[in-house]
């Protein structure tokens, strides 16, 4: 599957790595909800590192839709929370 790190580009990731990433991803969501800035930064860094380590980067000129999208490395907790709670985009 193709994962995009915002501001960096896309990587192709083997589905087998999803379980490992999923744990970090769930942790990140919990920290975002709880407003744990320190935890958020640490987990986001770990998640992005894992995606970079496990994935193969796609060329910049490829135009493939991403199945998963990750915030940019310097995204703040408030930015991410704002995106996730934008009622205009997420139905319900």
């Amino acid at each position, binding site marked *: 599957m193709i*994962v*995009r*790190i*915002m*501001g*960096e580009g896309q990587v192709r990731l083997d589905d087998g790595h*999803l379980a490992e*990433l*999923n744990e970090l*991803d*769930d*942790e*990140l*969501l919990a920290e*975002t909800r709880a407003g744990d800035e320190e935890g958020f930064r640490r987990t986001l860094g770990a998640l992005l590192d894992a995606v970079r380590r496990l994935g193969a980067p796609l060329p910049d000129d490829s*135009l493939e*839709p*991403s*199945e*998963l*999208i*990750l*915030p*940019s490395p*310097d995204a703040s907790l408030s930015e*991410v929370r704002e*995106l*996730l709670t*934008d009622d205009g*985009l*997420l*139905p319900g």
Partner: protein
Amino acid sequence: MSGVMKRMGMIFRAKANKALDRAEDPRETLDYSYQKQLELLQKVRRGVADVATSRKRLELQLNQLQGQSSKLEDQGRKALALGREDLAREALSRRAALQQQVTDLETQHQTLQGEEEKLTLAAQRLQAKVDAFRTKKETIKATYTAAQAQTRIGEAFSGISEEMGDVGMAIQRAEDKTAQLQARAGAIDELLASGALDDHSGLAKDDIQSELDRLSGGTDVELELQRMKAELAGGSSSQQAIEGGQGQTQSQQQSKSDTPRFDKQ
């Protein structure tokens, strides 16, 4: 996947869906419609085959009946030759009954043949329509795929889709940082002006230098006053006093140059 990754993906997909309005893929609809037409064509063909089978069965029955009719005619002729008129009459009456059946079957055969021709023609027309539809469908699908690709590219450039969403955000971040830096520069200027921050550039005066400047400015005023007073008095003693005063000033200046630590370098 239930965390940030999926939810971020949903956000961008929601944006992309809004942009493309892909509630229904026309290519799938076209393929479905083509499939239905093929099924209809298949039914018509099966109908033609059924009618043709019935026609052939009728032909076989007709042949059989005609064979029996010929046989009865022969039997009648032989019976008559043997002088058995009663037998000949029986044979001919049976033949007459068969002949009626043959006539009925021939009518049915003609009707079936007419139906078969009509159905064959309908099947041929339908086949032509289905072929035309297939060509059109493929053209429409190709056009749609091209349009979709074009939309996606356009969408990417306008920053709607996730493909360029991050570029848009990167620009936004750069703008935010620039604004932040500008605001910070403005704030630093204000703090420097208020004296809350020290200026290490050496361009601004410190408080000691300001006080010295103020004092030396005051001395100049005093000296000027003395000079004016002396001019008004016009006396040589006054002139001497002035000279003495000047001397004092010179010694003051000398003293100043002896203490360079207060000088603004």
